[in-house]
């Protein structure tokens, strides 16, 4: 793995400068979910062969977090975006 990943603030940099936090997941909201739903959320990932939305942090650079859409087969990064936080409850 030596592909270049664009940071929204620093531009394209080698991927080993970043920390990857994996697929974007949806946290079960509201009242207590079933054990199955909780387990799905905690342990299961789609792991697609294709385009996937992921969390990345430019660990060795600016330190900021962002989202990237990456094709897991080619490591082509289709887009990057800044997170849009859910409003605090």
């Amino acid at each position, binding site marked *: 793995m*030596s592909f*270049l990943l664009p940071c929204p603030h620093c531009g394209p940099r080698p991927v080993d400068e970043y920390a990857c*936090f994996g697929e974007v997941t949806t946290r079960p909201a509201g009242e207590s979910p079933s054990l199955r739903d909780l387990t799905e959320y905690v342990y299961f990932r789609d792991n697609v062969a294709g385009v996937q939305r992921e*969390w990345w*942090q430019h660990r060795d650079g600016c330190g900021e*977090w962002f989202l990237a859409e990456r094709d897991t087969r080619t490591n082509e990064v289709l887009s990057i975006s800044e997170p849009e936080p859910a409003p605090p409850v």
Partner: protein
Amino acid sequence: MRLGPQPRELIDRSQRVLFTFDGRAAGGYTGDTIGSALYASGQRVFSRSFKYHRPRGLLCCSGHCPNCLMTVDSVPNVRVCVEPIRAGAVVEPQNVWGSLDRDALAVTDKIGGPFTPVGFYYRTMIRPRFMWPLYEKVLRNLAGLGKVDERHHGHSRYDVEHRRARVLVVGGGQSGRAAALAAATRGPGVVLVDEGMRLRGAELEGVEVLAPARALGIWEGGLVPVDAGGVLYRFRAERIVVATGALEQPLVFPGNDLVGVMLPDGVRRLIRDFAIRPASRAVVLASDDDALEVADELREAGVAVPRVVDLRTAPLGRIEAKGRRGRVSAAVLDGRAVECDLVVASAGRQPSYSLLAQAGARVEYEPSRGIFVPAELPAGFEALGAVTGEGCATVHPLRSSGARNGDKSFVCVCEDVTTKDVDRAIAEGFDSIELSKRYTTVTMGPCQGKLCQLASIRLYARTTGVSEATVGTTTARPPWAPVELGLLAGPHHEPARRSSIHFRHEEAGATIQWAGPWKRPYAYGEHPEDEVRAVHESLGVIDVSTLGKILVEGPQAVELLERLYPNRFGDMKPGRIRYGVITSDGGRIMDDGTIARLADDLFYVTTTSTGADAVTAWFEWWNAVWGYDAEIVNVTGALAAVNLAGPRAREALSRLVDDPDDVAGDAFRYLDAKELDVAGVPCLALRIGFVGELGYELHFASPAGEHLWDRLVAEGAWPFGLEPQRVLRLEKAHIIVGQDTDSESNLLSAGMSWLPKLEKDDFVGKLAVEHVARREEVERLVGFTMEEDVVPAEGAQVVIEGRPGGRVTSARRSEAVGAVIGLAWLPPERCEDGTRFEIRVDRRTVGARVRHGAFYDASGARMRA
């Protein structure tokens, strides 16, 4: 023997260079390679083959084959045909028992050995198992390449240099040079890499020439590492031009590996570059015009050439080389013997497409020309010259198969694989080229398939009756050229984190150990228990600068922390401290530490020593998800920290502050946080009790580390290390996250059911705690004391009624408690205070009893004093 001056020779005949070879004096000229110098002085056998120990001589003389590997100045596997000569070099043959000319192990060639048939290591030497180490030792000695000299470090150094290029041209032949020059007219940033000696120091206008140097591979993002000897250039190139040319392919016939069977380019190099007459009588078997020309060059060099065959027009049925003592003595062409001491033979040229294939180009077979060519280049790549297939063609390399009583026909000289071996692999069912590669190891030797891939594919196609296109090629993988591991590793720097007080510990003679990414003192003397006693009885000081330290500041700092931690913080007053634990949404305990409220909107969080980076990232990530108005700032390195602990702590501290009343009992209570100037250094002082005595953690600007440390030691504080700290915390039954807990542990099982505030709307891990609470409890972490004075290992098995029933996570001998104490995971029904169980220690079981609460100062009176 040298010829008269050649028009483009590389040698400088006025400069003799002396070195030693196999213990004897040897010499050559500046411009020679070690190989050319040896050849000129009459050396013909350069190595012994991998399995059969057959004598081998120069084959390609271009650095592509395994035949001239030697150990030079303790560096094994050096291709001496391309290694520049240097004065005083010590050159030794390798993989030899005896001498190059008389290798005792050549007997394996005659009688076969346990390891001669293909795939032998998958079938033999499997039982008995206890013999494995012996087998391995024997095989390693018999087969293989050079040995690493463990005492000598070969190269004195390896460096890595990061480079960028607008255009990187690989290959300095005609088309490569032309492409580089053309690119240079459009601006700077053009680099040309060539592996040969000719371009060394060459000047191409506007082009940076690196030669001799090898592009090792092409990775994603246009990354091309270039081996230039002691320096690895890591190029990132916008555009890559591959002009790696084509390589002559050996013909496969009985005796094709005899010393004196050479590729035309190698012969040409000996004559042109080094002015050497390669032999006295040569037979030339040509498959292209280049090879035919070599016949003329040989004649000009005074070599008799009794027979030249153009295999394109006069296909021979049978070719065989006969030898004496491993050296060619005759070529037998369709039954007619021609005496000679050199057979120049090639099947034509195959494009060197590997780098392109690594970059993602497709490779396809062209039946009309008998070659594989690159097709569909990825964006940003260009292929030029012979690598595209231009001017390339091969005849079928396989000749005279089915020879019954002739010599072996080698498909792969690196791994000593013959046509018979490949046939056998096919017969055994290895009918895919990728599988066969792994079974026979064809293409897996030092040449990386440069000289054997085409022949093996064509042999496969012929034997299995399918087309070459169907057989296909094996995946092209880096490195394309051999490289020293040291060069890939680069300079040996493993950055360690050191606190600003670190060197005081070294000066005090502390035993230093790795603790996560940090270097820390284990203990200062031979007896950690002395340091424990000092803390209990008077005063100790430990460097805890390694603790993670994070500021969380902003109008919503409370909301953020209350959602990150199971704890409550909103009810804390500024100046107070609370113990906190972070869990994941799966309920796993991730880290623990203290949270001090410094102001309404400002918190000071400490983490474990190994957790600082991960916890900071965890906080930041969640806040990227939630978007609270709060900043998370890692100040771990900005601050040094020491824990001053012991009954004399207050008294010592009071002498170092401006107003002793500031540290008086009522003014500075247990779990208070307070800013204080200590010995002239502004500190954040936290009154906490990790080690069980009255104690103050002082956090202050790192640059003042040594100053404050020195002052505390001058006040009589005994430095104590990690080991005594482990004893002290265990006496308090304080857990270490990651040692006493693992990925299965949760707040309830670790005995912290008081901590999570389930009435909160949400916190990370809340859902899991709720589920765990509903589930039947599986195990629980409890303290224990041993009945005997033995210390079980961490991880020791708990035995209940003769069966495994849990495990020990921590155990130490405590002088203060007067027993061996520890923490263990036990079944819930065995966790009553005083319950007896057993622990396996050194092949027997020793009794232990559950003990609730702290082992030492259970009421906490001492740390609250």
